[in-house]
């Protein structure tokens, strides 16, 4: 695995809510332009770990960190780091599609605008919508409310919104859990195209999804990272028995 470039790295990372650890001493590299899946049963800390990568945990009261997360060579939680800057580089797509109650165009354009990104905003919106495989469906009605889109379209709009910021990493927190199989397939196809340009970390409940889309898989249980490796190896030749039991569906 050493031939890959790690862009993000959790290093002995422990995250606790009000003193109760949710992530325990996790060390995990995220490789550039690869898809890393984080799997595990509910409450295993996978979402907490994901949200620490772009400092979305900052909004949770009484959260504490030990250890480090390095983005390239910068400690993300160093006092001089502005979390807003972190989120510009590391975007996020949430479990439930959460478009702004505004037009399709405004949804994508808002992020670049408030951050004063230059260039043609129309072009930027179009590029992001094309990358999210949504352009053909919405190009004739960019001024319609985003809330009129279907669930799958809304989630792809949220992906376009993240892409418009030209981030390096996109974090996805169970992006398909509220979608039907067709929309899910749509988004999985999209992930393959996106990894040409972006690094993707995806938390998922769905093991088939992790096996289908990811290059690397991390299996977590009760806050611990049980196993991490190339997806093929984790699913076919896991080194830990707990991993094997989980990926073969014996629990979870």
């Amino acid at each position, binding site marked *: 695995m050493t031939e890959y470039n790690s862009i993000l790295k959790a290093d002995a990372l422990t995250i606790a809510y009000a003193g109760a650890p949710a992530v325990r001493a996790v060390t995990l590299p995220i490789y550039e332009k690869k898809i890393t899946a984080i799997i595990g049963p509910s409450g295993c800390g996978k979402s907490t770990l994901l949200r620490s990568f772009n400092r979305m945990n900052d*909004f949770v009261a009484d959260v504490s960190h030990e250890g480090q997360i390095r983005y390239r060579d910068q400690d993300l939680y160093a006092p001089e780091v502005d979390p*807003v800057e972190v989120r510009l580089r590391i975007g996020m797509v949430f479990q439930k599609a*959460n478009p702004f*109650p505004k037009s399709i165009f405004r949804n994508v354009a808002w992020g670049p605008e408030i951050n004063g990104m230059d260039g043609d905003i129309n072009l930027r919106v179009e590029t992001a919508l094309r990358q999210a495989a949504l352009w053909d469906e919405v190009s004739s009605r960019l001024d319609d409310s985003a809330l009129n889109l279907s669930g799958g379209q809304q989630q792809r709009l949220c992906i376009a919104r993240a892409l418009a910021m030209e981030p390096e990493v996109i974090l996805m927190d169970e992006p398909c859990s509220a979608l039907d199989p067709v929309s899910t397939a749509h988004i999985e196809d999209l992930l393959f195209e996106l990894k040409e340009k972006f690094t993707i970390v995806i938390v998922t409940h769905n093991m088939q999804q992790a096996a289908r889309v990811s290059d690397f898989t991390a299996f977590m249980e009760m806050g611990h990272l049980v196993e991490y490796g190339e997806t093929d190896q984790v699913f076919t030749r896991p080194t830990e028995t707990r991993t094997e039991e989980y990926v073969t569906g014996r629990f979870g």
Partner: protein
Amino acid sequence: MNKVNPLIVSDQLARRQWLSRLFKHFCTGVTFLAVAILGVLIFQVSVAGFGWLDWQFLTSFPSRFPERAGIYSALVGTLWLVTLTASLAIPIGVLAAIYLEEYAPKNRFTAFIEVNIANLAGVPSIVYGILGLAVFVRFMGLERSVLAGAMTMSLLVMPVIIIAAKEAIRAVPSSLRQAAFAVGATRWQVVRHHVLPSAIPGILTGVILALSRAIGETAPLIMIGALTYVAFVPEGPLDEFTALPIQIFNWTARPQETFHELAAGGIIVLLAILLLMNATAVYIRYRGSKR
């Protein structure tokens, strides 16, 4: 074992359904009772006062002679009072709500503040009148000015605005805030572009409730010494004033029946202003929901 046919209503279910219907009729009855009482009040006031409503009534100063008396000074005074109260209480109240919901840490101190804001909403208005008299009228030397009245009214209605605005801001889903933060927004940008636009209808409801209260309150104005007979209109915030409820109170306190009718006319004008404010709020909410 007897077979139970699931489609035959059992006695027990029939009783539950009867209770359910009874409750519906009870609620309907109570609602109509409330509306009916209001209807009777409005009807009585209208019968008594409608004959007096004309341009002369709106544009004349009060007078000893009922046929020459009008509400001009009270109407202008009320408009001054509401405008000043709104421009003081709305910004302070909404900003306080934003602070408490979006910025303040959740600790014992802020919990203490929130409980006390709720308590302030229940303090009798006469107490605010006494406070206004001591602080604004005497200590700050504002005399019996419309500004002193508006500041007193602002204190009175601010808790209502803060509580309503807080509820409205809290009702904005946190997924919306997270979406905005995730594209690199600052707290101010999140509040300005997403939280406030979503919360405006709720905030507005609270503001209208609060200002409606300010329009109708009499006790604190009497306490700070608003005049009862005014033959001029305020030209600035430091001028003396009177207001509609005071004029109405003054007329109803007189023995002559004709003045009671004038009071009814004043009440109609007061209700009309309230209706107009509510209609504005409904319109703004309607426009907000369409977007």
